[in-house]
């Protein structure tokens, strides 16, 4: 066939004005803006609160950024492998990925203001007394940090916007050459993505504790990123199914595959997380073990109490979903899969919290600012994604592999 025929009922696959989905950008945007203002007001009451705000905000932005980045990875790998099954959910991933530029806007000003409170290596007096930080200065300096941050966001935003716009142009023209062009560029995109994501993990999360390093940290950050994206994609797909938009389009076969990916990356995350812990625990080198000690019980001189948080991560992020997501019947059941996906989203949030917060508190501490930052960033994220969903169809209507995707069967 020269051009992909229109084979799906387009009237159902768009968000109609006046529906709940169409009102969502305004509602979520309002909630997000309100809680962003509340967070800023709370942050201004004391220097301690400002410090808390910067950390809470970093957790919230990284959490939602991960969803966008993992979705971008899904789109890239989908084109690189010329996958057929997932065409029906690819537009949703494209929309989620296009929330990355918004995250740049939310990340840059707050982190710029909070540099001193977040990153110990920005303290000139500390660096002057610290041989290790002096050695790391060629990488850990503010100019380099912001230069790299600019490159990360430019690469991600460029990729996300290109893949969404090319896919939407195909909706208009049905041009198959667009599919070939997207596929041909995707390996380059995957390479750029892998490098930028790893270094973003090093710069933004690993350097919170500048003495510590783990060469595996980039992969760890990637594992969580992909899990949160598959979980968010599943939640979004099922939500559209519950509101009737995807009825007859999304079948148990597609859900089964989303569930399998969610399950597989839960195992991948655990494999990477344990490997990172295992090598550091076994070698027992002080500057490496310090990071894990501050997430467990601390040292005799410097006690900490994050042990329950670490246990929750091991059990909730791996043991429970490993057995919950294992049976085929659960992956094919809409309600149970939704529960699994929401659970993994919550666990990924806990993972980011666990990565960032021990930098600020010796004891496991929760703050009102954690909640308001999450609602602020989350509201704006949902507003952005639902606004993008309202522009154009909910799936690539004239993708040459759409027929294959609609008829997809496992086995």
């Amino acid at each position: 066939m020269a051009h992909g025929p229109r084979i799906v009922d387009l009237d159902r696959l768009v968000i109609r004005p006046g529906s709940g989905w169409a009102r969502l950008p305004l509602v979520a945007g309002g909630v997000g803006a309100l809680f962003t203002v509340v967070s800023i007001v709370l942050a201004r009451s004391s220097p301690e609160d400002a410090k808390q705000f910067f950390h809470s905000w970093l957790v919230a932005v990284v959490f939602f950024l991960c969803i966008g980045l993992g979705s971008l990875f899904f789109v890239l790998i989908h084109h690189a492998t010329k996958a057929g099954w997932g065409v029906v959910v690819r537009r949703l991933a494209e929309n989620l990925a296009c929330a990355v530029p918004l995250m740049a806007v939310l990340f840059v000003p707050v982190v710029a203001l909070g540099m001193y409170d977040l990153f110990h290596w920005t303290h000139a007096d500390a660096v002057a007394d610290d041989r290790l930080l002096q050695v790391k200065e060629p990488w850990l300096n503010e100019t380099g940090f912001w230069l790299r941050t600019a490159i990360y966001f430019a690469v991600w935003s460029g990729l996300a916007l290109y893949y969404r716009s090319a896919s939407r142009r195909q909706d208009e023209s049905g041009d198959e050459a667009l599919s070939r062009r997207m596929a041909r560029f995707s390996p380059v995109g995957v390479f750029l993505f892998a490098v930028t994501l790893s270094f973003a993990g090093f710069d933004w999360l690993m350097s919170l504790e500048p003495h510590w390093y783990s060469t595996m940290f980039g992969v760890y950050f990637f594992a969580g990123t992909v899990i949160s994206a598959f979980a968010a994609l599943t939640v979004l797909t099922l939500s559209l199914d519950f509101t009737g938009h995807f009825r007859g389009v999304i079948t148990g076969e597609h859900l089964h595959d989303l569930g399998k990916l969610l399950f597989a990356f839960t195992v991948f995350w655990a494999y990477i997380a344990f490997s990172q812990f295992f090598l550091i625990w076994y070698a027992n080198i002080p500057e490496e073990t310090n990071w894990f000690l501050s997430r467990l019980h601390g040292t005799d001189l410097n006690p900490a109490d994050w042990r329950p948080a670490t246990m929750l991560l091991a059990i909730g992020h791996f043991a429970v979903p490993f057995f919950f997501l294992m049976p085929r019947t659960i992956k094919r059941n809409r309600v149970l899969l939704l529960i699994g996906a929401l659970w993994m989203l919550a666990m990924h949030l806990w993972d980011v919290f666990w990565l960032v917060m021990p930098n600020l508190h010796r004891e496991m501490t929760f703050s009102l600012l954690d909640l308001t930052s999450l609602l602020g960033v989350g509201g704006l994220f949902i507003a952005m994604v639902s606004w993008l969903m309202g522009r154009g169809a909910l799936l690539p209507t004239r993708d040459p592999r759409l027929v294959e995707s609609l008829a997809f069967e496992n086995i």
Partner: protein
Amino acid sequence: MGLMQLDVPEASGGYRHYGVLARFRTAKELYRACEAVRDAGYSKWDALTPFPVHGLEKAMGLKPSKLPFVVLATGLGGAGLGFGLQSWVHIMAYPLVISGKPLFTWPAFVPVTFELGVLGAALGAVLGMFAFNKLPTYHHPLFRSPNFARVTDDGLFIAIEAWDPKYDDEDTAEFLSGLGAAEVEHVPIEDPADDGDGGGGA
């Protein structure tokens, strides 16, 4: 596709035929025919195709495989064995302090536990598949039909076995013809050439 079940009853002497074999031209015809055979209430029968036909297990009314439970059990068994063996060695059989760590250092046991869990699951999957499929089966009565060689090329078959409670030599053959089969034949239960040899499927 499907299981090559060789449930020839002990008293197979009472049967002249292994059963009825019908060939269908297209996967669509086979799919419809399977639904009809299922709905007619046959239980001892199988569909045989050169390639997977999606959804045929639903048309045939097959129950989900029990293999996943075998894989889970052997996987957990392998993991438990790996963990147990290391614990026993390090605590009881050969206690040795390594880099100042306690004897029961469970994190060090995880890699072997994981690998043996994977090994157990993989062996359970392969051997369980063989067991459920009754493999290896060196001979099958259906091989006596020269027509049946097409199952590795373009032939899509339904075979209904003679010991199915609903089976009748004439009626079952007619029923399959009525479903649009290209050819319907009775497959002999014993090879006419080596009579009394005792070999073959019996």
